[in-house]
């Protein structure tokens, strides 16, 4: 549905041929796309404006790292900016008081997931911190809200305050405090009624509860699906309750979660946890990198790029690049690529880092296309003589039979591998004719080969979008031979990324 930022930027930079330094115009054009991407991800407009201003400062004049596509570079820059704005790697846990009971107040809009999150938090504190927790629902409005907390309490084996009919929220708060003190509880979690920020009476009640309970932690529970309203919500609650942190729920949905950035930017409060599932233990510690990747629609692509950089043997990559330039691509090169892919975690590993490809993963598993295929192909190449590897044309029927026996496969599989190699070799050849620049475009052409349409796996390991996903899905469903065979996808897979590899920034 949404294009990822990587894709948008690729569009922009494809038109730019000049390399060297990012000009102001390049940056402007790229930032316009960044702005749209952030808005599509539900980041609030004022926050987007701030962010763009900062990013412009940083991007202008930035030297283009040799051979890295400017699009990737800008994505990285934006990603780093987002991580920083989200609080970086600094993880903030709960502030548990030394004099019990620590009071934790949970507030939020209706339907944001306060009650469920209260129970998740209670379970976590009881399990991980080994503190005794009491929960109390102050929700006198929503039918059966108290019942819900009591039921969840039973599931989590956390005690809940007995329900007394007809009490007002402040009265329940007082009773809960007393019960927590008398019962020797370490932590008291107060689950308040959901309210709309614009309902003065309800906000007043929340403030009164806060005054009575003087909580050590006041946590705003907010839905990751929230749109532009996130800013107002966070501000309104922060003004009345002096919040100490945020919990983002429903991060297991497919929303981009720009609300996280908005809320963090407006309140300066740390995001402490992420709710990531319906089960009572689905509460995770906040991870700025993951959320940033999400906002960009890029999954953990940056990690993927970093991993690629770390894993690639540079000397070998340079050597291969030189060969490719000359239009040569023999079976040794193919074997090297196969090894490279396996080093990066194989198919599963690569897929795992791409966003939202669970379905594709399943299809790949079903189609029998897995890492064993890579290993088998490597074995085939390993069973050849040096001459055969350099000049596959000499492989006649009897040589093929020998290789097949050596690798423990059928001759048909050898033919498939050879066909695949020939396609890749042809591609390399035609690209080298276009001069050095041809290689920049080669990745894309190869990607196209894979999907059978325009695109395929995004070239150069950039962020795939949902559109890519559709294509991948089509690929998984339609193009993969059932029963695991020739791997027509490989040229695109390996080839799409690998010819670009020499260009990854070197680790210093």
């Amino acid at each position: 549905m949404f294009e990822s930022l990587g894709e948008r930027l690729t569009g922009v930079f494809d038109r730019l041929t000049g390399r060297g330094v990012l000009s102001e115009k390049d940056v402007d054009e790229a930032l316009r796309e960044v702005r749209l991407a952030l808005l599509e991800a539900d980041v609030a407009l004022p926050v987007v404006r701030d962010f763009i201003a900062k990013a412009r400062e940083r991007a202008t004049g930035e030297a283009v790292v040799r051979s890295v596509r400017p699009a990737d570079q800008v994505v990285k820059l934006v990603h780093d900016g987002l991580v920083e704005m989200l609080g970086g790697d600094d993880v903030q846990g709960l502030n548990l008081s030394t004099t019990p009971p620590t009071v934790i107040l949970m507030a939020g809009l209706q339907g944001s997931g306060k009650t469920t999150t209260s129970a998740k938090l209670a379970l976590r504190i009881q399990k991980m911190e080994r503190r005794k927790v009491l929960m109390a629902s102050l929700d006198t409005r929503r039918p059966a809200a108290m019942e819900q907390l009591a039921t969840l309490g039973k599931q989590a084996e956390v005690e809940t305050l007995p329900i007394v009919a007809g009490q007002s929220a402040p009265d329940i708060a007082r009773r809960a405090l007393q019960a927590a003190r008398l019962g020797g509880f370490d932590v008291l979690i107060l689950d308040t009624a959901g309210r709309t920020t614009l309902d003065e009476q309800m906000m007043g009640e929340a403030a009164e509860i806060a005054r009575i309970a003087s909580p050590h932690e006041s946590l705003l529970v907010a839905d990751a699906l929230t749109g532009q309203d996130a800013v107002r919500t966070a501000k309104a609650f922060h003004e009345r309750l002096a919040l100490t942190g945020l919990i983002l729920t429903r991060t297991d949905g497919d929303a981009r979660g720009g609300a996280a950035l908005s809320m963090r930017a407006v309140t300066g409060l740390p995001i402490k946890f992420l709710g990531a599932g319906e089960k009572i233990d689905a509460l995770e510690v906040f991870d700025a990198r993951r959320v940033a990747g999400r906002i960009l629609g890029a999954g953990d692509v940056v990690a993927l790029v970093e991993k690629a950089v770390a894993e690639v043997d540079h000397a070998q990559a340079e050597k291969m690049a030189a060969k490719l330039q000359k239009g040569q691509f023999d079976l040794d090169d193919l074997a090297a690529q196969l090894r490279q892919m396996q080093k990066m975690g194989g198919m599963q590993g690569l897929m795992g880092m791409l966003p939202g490809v669970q379905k594709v993963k399943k299809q790949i598993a079903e189609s029998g296309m897995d890492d064993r295929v890579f290993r088998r192909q490597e074995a085939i190449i390993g069973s050849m003589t040096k001459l055969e590897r350099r000049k596959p044309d000499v492989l006649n029927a009897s040589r093929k039979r020998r290789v097949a026996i050596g690798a423990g496969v059928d001759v048909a599989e050898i033919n498939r591998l050879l066909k695949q190699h020939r396609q890749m070799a042809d591609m390399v050849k035609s690209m080298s004719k276009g001069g050095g620049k041809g290689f920049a475009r080669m990745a894309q052409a190869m990607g196209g080969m894979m999907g059978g349409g325009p695109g395929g796996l995004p070239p150069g390991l950039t962020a795939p979008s949902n559109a890519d996903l559709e294509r991948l899905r089509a690929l998984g469903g339609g193009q993969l031979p059932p029963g695991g065979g020739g791997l027509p996808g490989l040229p695109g897979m390996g080839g799409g990324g690998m010819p670009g590899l020499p260009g990854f920034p070197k680790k210093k």
Partner: protein
Amino acid sequence: MSDAPPDNGFIIAPIPGFGPKKSWTERLTKGLAKTSKEFTEQVTAVLTKRRLDQDALDELEEMLIEADLGPAAAARVAAAFGKARFGREADENEIKESLAEAIAAELRPHEARFDPLRGPKPYIVLFVGVNGSGKTTTLGKIAADLKGRGAKVLIAAGDTFRAAAVEQLSVWAARSDTPIITRPAGADAAGLVFDAAARARAEGFDVVLVDTAGRLQNKSALMDELAKIVRVLKKADPSAPHETLLVLDATVGRNALSQVEAFDRIAGVTGVVMTKLDGTARGGVLVPVAEASRAPIKLIGVGEGIDDLQPFDATAFARSLVGLPAR
């Protein structure tokens, strides 16, 4: 009708809406007043008493984005507004009228009525949506409304997953004095729905309102379960469900589009209900949602009271959004 206190010991604050009746447009305007106030103040501040130029239009577009219209719809509305007004000066009211018209034009093709009393009997209505969007509350309000109109209504508590969901719905059923079919937590929802349909036919009910558990649209296992509910329902009555209402929360941003698409694919949505329009300052999300959805918008919720759930009227909505009284 009176809100007879249920005898199951829950604490219930009296809910608004059972009090003296106000007219629907009054409610809409009041509900959206909070929504519209800041937006219209901004808009008029930027646009009044100056010739409409590109800068002003750009600013308008940004405000529309902030009202959750999304970049694409915001650009369209701003452009339509610009066409009508470009190069001219206008007073506040004229600006509001033009803007309301531009928004209404976007919404009008996506407006339709929810009328369960005109159709086959029993008329089976399925409520679907993500967690916390307001399915149960919406169902409760509809039950009360239909009951008030003299219909024989059956409620099926198909949310067997969330803790106390059945209890919550039972309270609503008690309020409107409507029979309800429940099963213990964790039971198979599809089976319960089948029973409800069978019983409704046997006992001559007019309408069956089926609640379902909230589910995120990217959870394929849960969506499969929803598909099963629909499948099983069709076994009881091949023409069912006669209406599948997707309940959307107005505070949701761009993800609403993804919800529309996924729920439609699995359950064949026939109408959209947008709730909590009063709770946020952003009613604008209705525009991109209307556009993305195959199904029309049928109902909107502008308050907590029972009467605050109302048929969707594009013109009235657009006018309220910019702070104009109904015509």
